């Protein structure tokens, strides 16, 4: 197992180098915009995957935390002039705290009904932000004041700066996932995902494990929300709590490979590339085309490759490894 590990480390190093210099080589703002989308949705997928992939708690309501993160930092910035860097962490903490009562309610249900309950909580939060306009601008939303180049307020002249911010987020998400995967917590989560009753029978404290991983997942998702708002300079309940955010976070993980470190990243690269190509070929005139294609890809993965793209890669690698001793 020594050699494949060195190989893995080498490929990660090469990948890191390519990703770090990419915005210096590719200067087209259209391309950097696509890179940023890929990194952001990879990050959201990684955050979702911690709970959805390892513990198999299939949430379709992560937009709740995305929106809470976005709104916390924006309210702090616009009303109190506090830097979004601080607001980002504050948003994460708010999301973490919100995940406690939401989890308390939703974890009473299992399987599909857990999923439905998470959808309902995210939608309810959106409705609350739509309705109470003295609290936060209501349905019109607000624009973020443009300060020009103000790195301390998370505003940059160069698009590539945003690229590095979201790249940093993704790196944090991947490191956390890696650490959890290698820890006892990772094994407990997988056990809960395989069979919750059996896991509890051998002494895994499932409710506390699920609560903890939900808090971590919510915290990370909220960071993505703050970043997105700073990037598009605008916030309203429909974008911040968009159901599409919840869908995409789950989708990229499932297509890429649920419960794997790199699955969400690979899934996002495939889906975002497909959607960009489709848009450039057919124009964005056909509303609904992107999600039509996404849903077909999702169905194909579920029916033929439930382990996702990572599963295909692992199987191919296994075949390669199994063949090698014959030659040696």
């Amino acid at each position: 197992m020594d050699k494949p590990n060195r190989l893995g480390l080498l490929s990660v190093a090469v990948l890191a180098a390519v990703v770090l210099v990419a915005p210096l080589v590719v200067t087209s703002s259209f391309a950097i915009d696509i890179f940023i989308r890929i990194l952001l949705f990879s990050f959201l997928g990684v955050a979702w995957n911690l709970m959805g992939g390892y513990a198999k708690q299939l949430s379709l309501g992560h937009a709740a935390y995305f929106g809470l993160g976005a709104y916390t930092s924006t309210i702090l910035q616009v009303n109190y002039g506090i830097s979004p860097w601080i607001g980002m962490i504050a948003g994460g903490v708010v999301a973490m705290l919100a995940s406690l009562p939401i989890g308390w309610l939703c974890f009473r249900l299992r399987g599909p009904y857990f999923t439905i309950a998470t959808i309902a909580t995210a939608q309810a939060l959106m409705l609350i932000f739509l309705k109470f306009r003295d609290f936060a601008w209501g349905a019109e939303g607000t624009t973020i004041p443009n300060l020009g180049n103000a790195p301390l307020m998370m505003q940059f002249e160069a698009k590539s700066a945003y690229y590095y911010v979201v790249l940093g987020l993704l790196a944090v998400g991947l490191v956390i996932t890696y650490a959890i995967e290698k820890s006892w917590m990772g094994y407990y989560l997988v056990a809960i995902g395989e069979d919750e009753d059996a896991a509890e029978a051998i002494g895994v404290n499932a409710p506390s494990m699920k609560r903890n991983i939900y808090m971590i997942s919510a915290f990370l998702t909220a960071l993505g929300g703050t970043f997105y708002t700073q990037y598009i300079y605008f916030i309203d309940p429909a974008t911040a709590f968009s159901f599409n955010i919840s869908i995409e976070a789950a989708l990229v993980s499932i297509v890429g490979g649920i419960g794997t470190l790199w699955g969400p990243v690979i899934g996002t690269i495939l889906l975002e590339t497909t959607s960009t190509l489709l848009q450039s070929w057919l124009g964005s005139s056909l509303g609904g085309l992107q999600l039509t294609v996404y849903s077909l890809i999702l169905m194909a993965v579920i029916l033929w490759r439930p382990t996702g793209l990572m599963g295909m890669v692992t199987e191919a690698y296994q075949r390669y490894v199994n063949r090698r001793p014959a030659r040696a």
Partner: protein
Amino acid sequence: MLETVAQAVINGLLIGGIYALVSIGVTLIFGVVKIVNFAQGEFVMIGMYISFYLATQFGIDPIVSLVVTMPVLFVIGVLVQHFLIRRVLGPNDMPQIFLTFALSLLLLNLALMLFTANYRTVHTFYSDEAFHLGGLYIPVAKLIAFVVAMILSAALWVFLHTTDLGKAMRAASQNRDVATLMGINPNRVFCVALGIALALAGAAGSLLMPFYSAYPFVGQVFVLMAFVAVVLGTLGNVMGALIASLMMGVGESLGIQYVGADSGLLVVFAMLLLTLAFKPNGLGGGRVR
């Protein structure tokens, strides 16, 4: 004051009949096949578009077009079970949830491409008619929809309790393994369950058409309502889903009356969250059916 409450309750009950058709379908599929059909609302949408085109192209009344939408959706249900759902039945939740979820996304976005996001309405001679009872106002189209919905629910109840196939379905929902040992072919029973559930969704679509607009996202309103009603009425319980749907309709209607026109859904979510907090097994409490 009393009259306003009575009016809100009547409005709620009438629309609750439509919710009942959708949630009975959801709970029937859940009870028999043990999956949640996230795409149920999209089949309501398909029913609405079929009725819309029959009405605008051939001048067929939406209520009459029930005789088309129900069989068509029954067949679609059998096909969906046979070619899609059958392949993901197993101990693992993930494929089941995301297969029907993907189906919902697919149908919704195909509809967006084929029919655009425009609202389509059918105007019938009874669309604007209403009975006046004292100070109360009862729209004819909604009353017809409610009555037909109740007849269909009653017919389903009779089917489940008196016919062999219906009893086989109830047996399969109580214990699939034992039912299989008794010679019940599970896939055949599942196909019929999906067929009936989708036919009910299609019926809901046709019944809605005289007083409700068809648009690609229309199903989401109803499916959300149905999911709440199904939890509230205890999973898999047809009678529970019916009663809970009527309650949801009334709750929504009172919410619109007293909290604000945009708060109907908020009240529904509040009801869901309260249900989860205090009665996670539904109002029935145990596993009744």
